[in-house]
């Protein structure tokens, strides 16, 4: 199974790079998501990402004032990116494990196609196994 097969419809919530960790936390809870995309400031900037892990194990564990800490202090920037749509999903999983992230951004040349999450991987493998069992 290849990367292109598991690229589902991605929903992601964006947040400004000037936000604080508190803003990110509120946005995460209200949008019922566990990660946010931090938009870039210009074409030479990179996108960033902040996850539930970054907030809880980062900002809260460090005892920071959430309303005064910029989200960029705890964000992952640049994103972990993949662009080879023919890659076997085994290596997608390995990349997640190596980089210690649970979301990977997928680009085809210049086009942003979406995010792959660890749940997408589980779904794909479970589906494949179910098919294999029928045969």
């Amino acid at each position, binding site marked *: 199974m290849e990367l292109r097969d598991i690229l589902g419809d991605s929903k992601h919530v964006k947040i400004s790079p000037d936000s604080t960790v508190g803003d990110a936390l509120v946005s995460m809870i209200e949008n019922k998501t566990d990660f946010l995309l931090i938009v870039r400031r210009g074409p030479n900037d990179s996108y960033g990402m902040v996850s539930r892990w970054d907030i809880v194990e980062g900002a809260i564990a460090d*005892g920071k004032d*959430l309303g005064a800490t910029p989200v960029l202090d705890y964000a992952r920037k640049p994103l972990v990116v993949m662009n080879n749509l023919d890659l076997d999903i085994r290596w997608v999983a*390995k990349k997640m494990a190596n980089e210690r992230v649970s979301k990977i951004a997928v680009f085809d040349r210049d086009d942003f196609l979406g995010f792959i999450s660890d749940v997408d991987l589980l779904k794909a493998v479970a589906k494949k196994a179910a098919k294999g069992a029928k045969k």
Partner: protein
Amino acid sequence: MTAALLILKDVVKTFEFPTIGRDESTLSAMNKMLELDKYTLLVPRQNKNDAYGIVTKKDIVARVIAEGKDPTKVKVKDIMSKPLVILTNLSLDLRWVAKAMANSGVSTIAVFDKGDFYGYVTEACILEGVYNALRRAKLEQGVEFVSC
């Protein structure tokens, strides 16, 4: 606006995780996770000298799929985390709960109160607790809270 006023007791939740047998395959763990939309499963102990284990989606991605192993052959007991990471001080500052998660690299901690099982605290519990505290602080300041 800080999380300093919150303690573990404010955010700990008394619920049970779905369980999975230690000898079941990772595939059945995966199916159970997707079916219930809960990505943490508890592995019961065999006897009172044994420890409980836990298996999460991260374990499956990193230890089965990434290694190219067959999920029907790898058993839950080979990839689970065991024993559980626990906390026993219910009045612990939330900051140190978060730090305990960061130090041990887990997202779920079991909480015991004087030897009795009390509940679990997860990343989502902590976020919710801080969120509610921020909301209360805003209400007290007289700022009307805008909800989605």
